[in-house]
Protein backbone atom coordinates (compact mmCIF):
# COMPACT_ATOMS: atom_id res chain seq x y z
CA UNK A 1 0.00 0.00 0.00
CA UNK A 2 2.79 2.46 0.89
CA UNK A 3 4.47 1.32 -2.31
CA UNK A 4 1.40 2.34 -4.30
CA UNK A 5 1.14 5.69 -2.51
CA UNK A 6 4.79 6.53 -3.14
CA UNK A 7 4.39 5.58 -6.82
CA UNK A 8 1.36 7.84 -7.17
CA UNK A 9 2.95 10.78 -5.34
CA UNK A 10 6.24 10.52 -7.21
CA UNK A 11 4.45 10.79 -10.58
CA UNK A 12 1.70 13.18 -9.43
CA UNK A 13 2.49 15.71 -12.16
CA UNK A 14 1.95 13.08 -14.82
CA UNK A 15 -1.34 11.87 -13.32
CA UNK A 16 -2.64 15.43 -13.26
CA UNK A 17 -1.41 16.00 -16.81
CA UNK A 18 -3.42 13.00 -18.02
CA UNK A 19 -6.46 14.17 -15.99
CA UNK A 20 -6.35 17.69 -17.45
CA UNK A 21 -5.88 16.31 -20.95
CA UNK A 22 -8.96 14.10 -20.59
CA UNK A 23 -10.98 17.02 -19.13
CA UNK A 24 -10.07 19.13 -22.16
CA UNK A 25 -10.85 16.33 -24.63
CA UNK A 26 -14.21 15.71 -22.92
CA UNK A 27 -15.09 19.41 -23.15
CA UNK A 28 -14.13 19.60 -26.82
CA UNK A 29 -16.29 16.57 -27.71
CA UNK A 30 -19.29 16.70 -25.35
CA UNK A 31 -19.94 20.39 -24.58
CA UNK A 32 -22.61 22.06 -26.71
CA UNK A 33 -21.54 25.70 -26.36
CA UNK A 34 -18.77 26.97 -28.66
CA UNK A 35 -17.02 29.07 -25.97
CA UNK A 36 -16.96 26.03 -23.64
CA UNK A 37 -15.34 24.04 -26.45
CA UNK A 38 -12.66 26.74 -26.81
CA UNK A 39 -12.02 26.65 -23.04
CA UNK A 40 -11.57 22.87 -23.35
CA UNK A 41 -9.08 23.34 -26.20
CA UNK A 42 -7.01 25.71 -24.05
CA UNK A 43 -7.06 23.28 -21.11
CA UNK A 44 -5.77 20.57 -23.48
CA UNK A 45 -2.92 22.84 -24.60
CA UNK A 46 -1.84 23.74 -21.06
CA UNK A 47 -1.92 20.03 -20.13
CA UNK A 48 0.67 19.33 -22.83
CA UNK A 49 2.77 22.27 -21.59
CA UNK A 50 2.55 20.81 -18.06
CA UNK A 51 3.89 17.49 -19.37
CA UNK A 52 6.87 19.12 -21.08
CA UNK A 53 7.78 21.34 -18.12
CA UNK A 54 7.53 18.32 -15.77
CA UNK A 55 10.14 16.51 -17.90
CA UNK A 56 12.73 19.20 -17.19
CA UNK A 57 12.43 19.15 -13.38
CA UNK A 58 15.37 17.73 -11.41
CA UNK A 59 15.45 16.83 -7.73
CA UNK A 60 17.64 19.42 -5.97
CA UNK A 61 18.14 21.44 -9.13
CA UNK A 62 18.11 25.24 -9.17
CA UNK A 63 16.58 27.56 -11.79
CA UNK A 64 18.51 27.70 -15.10
CA UNK A 65 20.29 31.02 -14.52
CA UNK A 66 24.05 30.56 -14.32
CA UNK A 67 25.79 31.26 -11.02
CA UNK A 68 29.15 33.05 -10.90
CA UNK A 69 28.40 34.90 -14.13
CA UNK A 70 30.35 38.14 -14.40
CA UNK A 71 34.00 38.44 -13.42
CA UNK A 72 34.37 34.74 -12.54
CA UNK A 73 34.64 33.19 -15.99
CA UNK A 74 37.18 30.59 -14.84
CA UNK A 75 34.56 29.03 -12.50
CA UNK A 76 33.52 25.49 -13.46
CA UNK A 77 29.80 25.15 -14.36
CA UNK A 78 28.08 21.95 -13.27
CA UNK A 79 25.18 21.36 -15.66
CA UNK A 80 23.76 18.72 -13.28
CA UNK A 81 22.85 21.41 -10.73
CA UNK A 82 20.48 23.22 -13.10
CA UNK A 83 16.95 22.34 -14.23
CA UNK A 84 16.89 21.44 -17.93
CA UNK A 85 15.86 24.67 -19.74
CA UNK A 86 15.26 23.18 -23.21
CA UNK A 87 11.57 22.14 -22.61
CA UNK A 88 10.89 25.59 -21.10
CA UNK A 89 12.09 27.34 -24.25
CA UNK A 90 9.99 25.07 -26.47
CA UNK A 91 6.91 25.67 -24.33
CA UNK A 92 7.30 29.47 -24.47
CA UNK A 93 6.55 29.16 -28.19
CA UNK A 94 3.62 26.84 -27.45
CA UNK A 95 2.01 29.40 -25.07
CA UNK A 96 2.18 32.14 -27.71
CA UNK A 97 0.80 29.83 -30.41
CA UNK A 98 -2.00 28.88 -27.99
CA UNK A 99 -3.06 32.51 -27.57
CA UNK A 100 -3.01 32.97 -31.38
CA UNK A 101 -5.31 29.96 -31.91
CA UNK A 102 -7.54 31.25 -29.10
CA UNK A 103 -7.91 34.60 -30.85
CA UNK A 104 -8.78 32.98 -34.19
CA UNK A 105 -11.27 30.60 -32.54
CA UNK A 106 -13.04 33.40 -30.67
CA UNK A 107 -13.21 35.54 -33.82
CA UNK A 108 -14.86 32.62 -35.66
CA UNK A 109 -17.28 32.16 -32.74
CA UNK A 110 -18.28 35.86 -32.92
CA UNK A 111 -18.82 35.53 -36.71
CA UNK A 112 -21.01 32.45 -36.16
CA UNK A 113 -23.01 34.31 -33.50
CA UNK A 114 -23.59 37.23 -35.88
CA UNK A 115 -24.87 34.85 -38.58
CA UNK A 116 -27.00 32.44 -36.53
CA UNK A 117 -27.71 34.47 -33.35
CA UNK A 118 -26.75 31.55 -31.09
CA UNK A 119 -23.63 29.85 -29.74
CA UNK A 120 -25.21 26.43 -29.15
CA UNK A 121 -23.99 23.82 -31.60
CA UNK A 122 -27.26 21.89 -32.04
CA UNK A 123 -29.26 25.08 -32.78
CA UNK A 124 -26.66 26.11 -35.38
CA UNK A 125 -26.88 22.66 -37.00
CA UNK A 126 -30.70 22.84 -37.01
CA UNK A 127 -30.58 26.24 -38.73
CA UNK A 128 -28.04 24.99 -41.29
CA UNK A 129 -30.19 21.94 -42.10
CA UNK A 130 -33.36 24.03 -42.20
CA UNK A 131 -32.08 26.28 -44.99
Amino acid at each position, binding site marked *: MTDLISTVVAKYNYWIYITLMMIGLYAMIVKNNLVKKIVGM*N*IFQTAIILFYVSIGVKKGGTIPIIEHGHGQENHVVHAVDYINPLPHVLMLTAIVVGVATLGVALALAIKIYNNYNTLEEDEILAQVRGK
Partner: protein
Amino acid sequence: MIWPIDLAILTLVVVAAIGALMVKDLLGASVLFGSYSFMMCLLWSIMGAVDVAFTEASVGAGVSTVFFVAAVFRTTRRTRD
Protein backbone atom coordinates in the same frame (compact mmCIF):
# COMPACT_ATOMS: atom_id res chain seq x y z
CA MET B 1 10.60 21.85 -6.26
CA ILE B 2 8.69 21.99 -2.94
CA TRP B 3 6.38 19.01 -3.27
CA PRO B 4 3.56 19.85 -0.73
CA ILE B 5 2.93 23.18 -2.52
CA ASP B 6 3.17 21.33 -5.85
CA LEU B 7 0.47 18.84 -4.82
CA ALA B 8 -1.81 21.58 -3.46
CA ILE B 9 -1.52 23.75 -6.59
CA LEU B 10 -2.03 20.75 -8.90
CA THR B 11 -5.26 19.90 -7.08
CA LEU B 12 -6.40 23.54 -7.36
CA VAL B 13 -5.63 23.45 -11.10
CA VAL B 14 -7.97 20.49 -11.62
CA VAL B 15 -10.67 22.14 -9.49
CA ALA B 16 -10.42 25.38 -11.50
CA ALA B 17 -10.55 23.47 -14.81
CA ILE B 18 -13.67 21.52 -13.81
CA GLY B 19 -15.27 24.71 -12.45
CA ALA B 20 -14.61 26.61 -15.69
CA LEU B 21 -16.37 23.87 -17.64
CA MET B 22 -19.26 23.31 -15.22
CA VAL B 23 -20.42 26.87 -14.48
CA LYS B 24 -23.60 27.86 -16.34
CA ASP B 25 -22.50 31.39 -17.26
CA LEU B 26 -19.93 32.26 -19.91
CA LEU B 27 -18.56 35.30 -18.04
CA GLY B 28 -18.02 33.13 -14.96
CA ALA B 29 -16.37 30.51 -17.14
CA SER B 30 -13.90 33.06 -18.53
CA VAL B 31 -13.05 34.37 -15.05
CA LEU B 32 -12.53 30.81 -13.77
CA PHE B 33 -10.34 30.13 -16.81
CA GLY B 34 -8.24 33.15 -15.83
CA SER B 35 -7.81 31.72 -12.34
CA TYR B 36 -6.86 28.38 -13.93
CA SER B 37 -4.14 30.15 -15.95
CA PHE B 38 -2.87 31.88 -12.81
CA MET B 39 -2.67 28.54 -10.96
CA MET B 40 -0.68 27.18 -13.91
CA CYS B 41 1.64 30.21 -13.62
CA LEU B 42 2.25 29.42 -9.93
CA LEU B 43 2.95 25.81 -10.95
CA TRP B 44 5.59 26.82 -13.49
CA SER B 45 7.38 29.01 -10.93
CA ILE B 46 7.34 26.13 -8.40
CA MET B 47 8.87 23.83 -11.02
CA GLY B 48 11.64 26.36 -11.72
CA ALA B 49 10.47 27.49 -15.16
CA VAL B 50 10.46 31.21 -14.37
CA ASP B 51 10.46 32.34 -18.02
CA VAL B 52 7.41 30.19 -18.78
CA ALA B 53 5.82 31.51 -15.56
CA PHE B 54 5.92 35.16 -16.46
CA THR B 55 4.90 34.49 -20.05
CA GLU B 56 1.90 32.53 -18.75
CA ALA B 57 1.05 35.31 -16.27
CA SER B 58 1.02 38.01 -18.94
CA VAL B 59 -0.20 36.08 -21.98
CA GLY B 60 -2.25 33.24 -20.47
CA ALA B 61 -3.88 34.91 -17.49
CA GLY B 62 -3.91 38.43 -18.96
CA VAL B 63 -4.50 38.45 -22.71
CA SER B 64 -6.58 35.23 -22.84
CA THR B 65 -8.98 36.48 -20.17
CA VAL B 66 -9.36 39.82 -21.98
CA PHE B 67 -10.11 37.94 -25.23
CA PHE B 68 -12.71 35.75 -23.52
CA VAL B 69 -14.44 38.67 -21.77
CA ALA B 70 -14.48 40.71 -25.01
CA ALA B 71 -15.94 37.77 -26.95
CA VAL B 72 -18.61 37.14 -24.28
CA PHE B 73 -19.65 40.81 -24.29
CA ARG B 74 -19.91 40.76 -28.10
CA THR B 75 -22.06 37.61 -28.09
CA THR B 76 -24.10 36.33 -25.16
CA ARG B 77 -23.59 35.18 -21.57
CA ARG B 78 -26.27 32.53 -21.63
CA THR B 79 -25.39 28.86 -22.05
CA ARG B 80 -27.17 25.59 -21.49
CA ASP B 81 -24.18 23.53 -20.29
